[in-house]
């Protein structure tokens, strides 16, 4: 059996509270040993030795929220191109939203997508199933059958489950399978035709706003329902101070609620929209500086459990438009770790807490056997340099669409190598340079 030892690494495993210098031994696809003393005990003649030269060795990132165009809109992103972006960003497992064409709302489509994901091979690809048929918010899908077929959880993707009665029944019924209902919390009636955060900036730009209260009200409503029904509820992409506070209080009351956010919400504010930059048109919209600080506080104290990429590719036909007409969303797989490390560099959140939100917690929430460096587990891990200064350049992204809100942002931290099941799937030194296709901003 192939044995490789990764020596001279800074081992980071939030699940074990591990942050030490040491080594990790893998045998075939699995981790054989890990720790500060592994090198001394394990090196033998038949062991291939990789000197990590002090790089951080951490579990592969588990991304809970990825949109791709496949099936149905492969010109925007395929599972294969998303996987290439993922490994370049240190993501070894991701869960796709069901808003494809056809929508993943029955077992046949779910199995089809899972098979497509397996065929890609580069990363572990799973899929959520739609919570309601056709994402229409009216009739629940076959939760039991879909769960049995491997659905990571249930969500209507970027659409809120708006009907309170439907949400109540979903939460109650999903309890049977101990699976998560993932909500995109935005009250549609208050979102209306809004395209950015409501406030002075929107007023100056003459753009219809989305009030922060649209998120808060949906969160508060759903927490009431969760109180009533039990079950597991997860809010995605929290972006406002009051919504985060509502979740914080619900957790203190013992409700089974979890939440995630995405880098734009702790790294950017609504001012990015000035100049009508459609790459900064996201859902939920970028908020105020006060909200951004609240998101960081939420990550630091664990109110926000996970950090997701919210990868939402869009091609030029969707983005090179007047702001009001452009689609929502930005890509994020490749920049997920680099931007998240800003939290560490700025002294806002400890390294292990950030990594926990990127690895262990999302894996636990989705019940994936990933996100930790434990003996016997699959060797899905990354080597990264947390101090390497790079500038994000949309032309160097590896996904098919390059609509990043972080274009030209200087960041610190770069993924050097990504391993999945012990195999090297990305190496910054040898990976072919992405084709430079200039994607005009809008």
């Amino acid at each position, binding site marked *: 059996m192939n044995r490789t030892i990764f020596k001279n690494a800074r081992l980071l495993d939030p699940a074990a509270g591990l942050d030490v210098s040491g080594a990790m031994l893998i045998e075939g696809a699995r981790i054989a040993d890990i720790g500060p003393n592994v090198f001394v005990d394990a090196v033998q003649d038949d062991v291939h030795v990789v000197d990590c030269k002090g790089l951080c060795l951490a579990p592969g990132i588990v991304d809970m929220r990825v949109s791709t165009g496949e099936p149905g809109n492969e010109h925007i992103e395929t599972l294969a191109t998303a996987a290439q972006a993922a490994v370049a960003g240190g993501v070894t497992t991701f869960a796709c939203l069901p808003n494809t064409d056809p929508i993943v709302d029955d077992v046949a489509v779910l199995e089809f997508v899972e098979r497509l994901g397996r065929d890609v091979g580069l990363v572990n690809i799973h899929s959520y199933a739609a919570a309601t048929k056709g994402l229409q918010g009216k009739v629940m899908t076959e939760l039991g059958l879909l769960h049995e077929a491997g659905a990571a959880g249930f969500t209507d993707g970027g659409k809120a489950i708006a009907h309170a009665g439907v949400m109540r029944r979903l939460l109650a019924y999903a309890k049977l399978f101990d699976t998560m209902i993932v909500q995109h919390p935005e009250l549609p009636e208050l979102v209306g035709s809004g395209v950015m955060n409501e406030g*002075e900036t*929107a007023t100056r730009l003459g753009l219809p706003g989305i009030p922060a209260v649209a998120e808060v009200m949906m969160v508060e409503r759903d927490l009431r329902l969760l109180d009533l029904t039990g079950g597991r509820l997860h809010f995605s992409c929290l972006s406002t101070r009051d919504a985060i506070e509502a979740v914080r209080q619900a957790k203190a009351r013992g409700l089974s609620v979890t939440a995630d956010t995405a880098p734009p919400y702790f790294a950017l504010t609504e001012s990015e929209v000035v100049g009508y930059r459609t790459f900064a048109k996201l859902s939920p919209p970028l908020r105020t500086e006060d909200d951004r600080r609240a998101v960081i506080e939420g990550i630091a104290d664990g109110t926000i459990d996970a950090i997701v990429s919210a990868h939402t590719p869009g091609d030029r036909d969707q983005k090179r438009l007047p702001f009001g*007409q452009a689609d929502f969303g930005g890509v994020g797989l490749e920049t997920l770790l680099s931007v998240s490390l800003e939290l560490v560099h700025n002294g806002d959140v400890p390294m292990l807490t950030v990594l926990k939100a990127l690895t262990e917690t999302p894996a636990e929430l989705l019940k994936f056997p990933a996100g930790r460096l434990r003996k016997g587990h699959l060797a899905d891990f990354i080597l990264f340099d947390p101090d390497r200064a790079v500038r994000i350049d949309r032309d160097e992204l590896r996904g098919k669409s390059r609509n990043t809100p972080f274009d030209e942002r200087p960041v610190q931290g770069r993924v050097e190598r990504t391993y999945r099941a012990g195999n090297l799937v990305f190496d910054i030194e040898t990976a072919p340079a992405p084709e430079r296709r200039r994607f005009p901003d809008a």
Partner: protein
Amino acid sequence: MTSSQPSPQSDAPALRLQHLLGIEGLSRPDIEALLDLSDRYVDLNRRAEKKMSSLRGRTIINLFFEDSTRTRTSFELAGKRLGADVLNMSVGTSSVKKGETLIDTAVTLNAMHPDVLTIRHGDSGAVHLLAQKVNCGVINAGDGSHEHPTQALLDALTIRRRKGDITGLTVAICGDVAHSRVARSNIHLLSIMGARVRIVAPPTLIPAGLDRLGVEIHHDMRTGLADCDIVMMLRLQNERMQASYIPSVREYYKLFGLDHEKLAVAKPDALVMHPGPMNRGVEIDSDVADDIERSLIREQVEMGVAVRMACLEVLAQSQLEPWAKNQ
């Protein structure tokens, strides 16, 4: 004035603008220079011989993605009086591919080497997007709910000619501010020029954060109009009525429609303005709209041509500057 006569711009302060996309970002000297130049064109327009040759050989394209008769005609007249070749294009926006049409149209027109494009579009920011795709000067002739800079300039010119100075005046802008590009441009311009700006509208028609633009907000015409010098009415956008911003037109007229009774609380010499087209009996009573003592509405239209002549001239001349071509 004939082509042999000196251009009204000849002794005007030098002003260079690559584009005129909004009032926000302009300086007071920029605005004053444009108004000074416009003033001279007012005189020209009142003469029998109105044609000049200062833009002879230049091409101006009016690209309107939204219907507008008065603004387009005003720009067309302005361009022709300066001797330019003026082309009008109306582009429908009903297709889902309207964005593609937008960029494609800009690129196509750019290849024909116009000197100035005047653009109206129903989406805020669309004119900014187009300006990035062309090499010529671009004038925003109204974009969504964002800005309508030449309207604000013509309003300012109208006020300045009647009142002498804008500084220190109290101006009440009344009505559907939420959807009004005219209101935004006027708020910026009047504030830059030192006027005190009040907004009078029901809360549903006031966008969030408006108070942070330095305006006073009133929900009652009697307090909002008290002792003001200028009452600027806005068109109630009837197409928005479905969204229930107000309960009914009848109620709106009673509470916010301008009639002589409400106007009575303003200064005795207060003047009334409206960017048109008016909804008579909705936001304004015909008696007020047609009152030659109080209403400046027809004068605004006249000033519009002069202001647009000034803007076209400044932009067309700026395109000759090497710095502009290299932007």
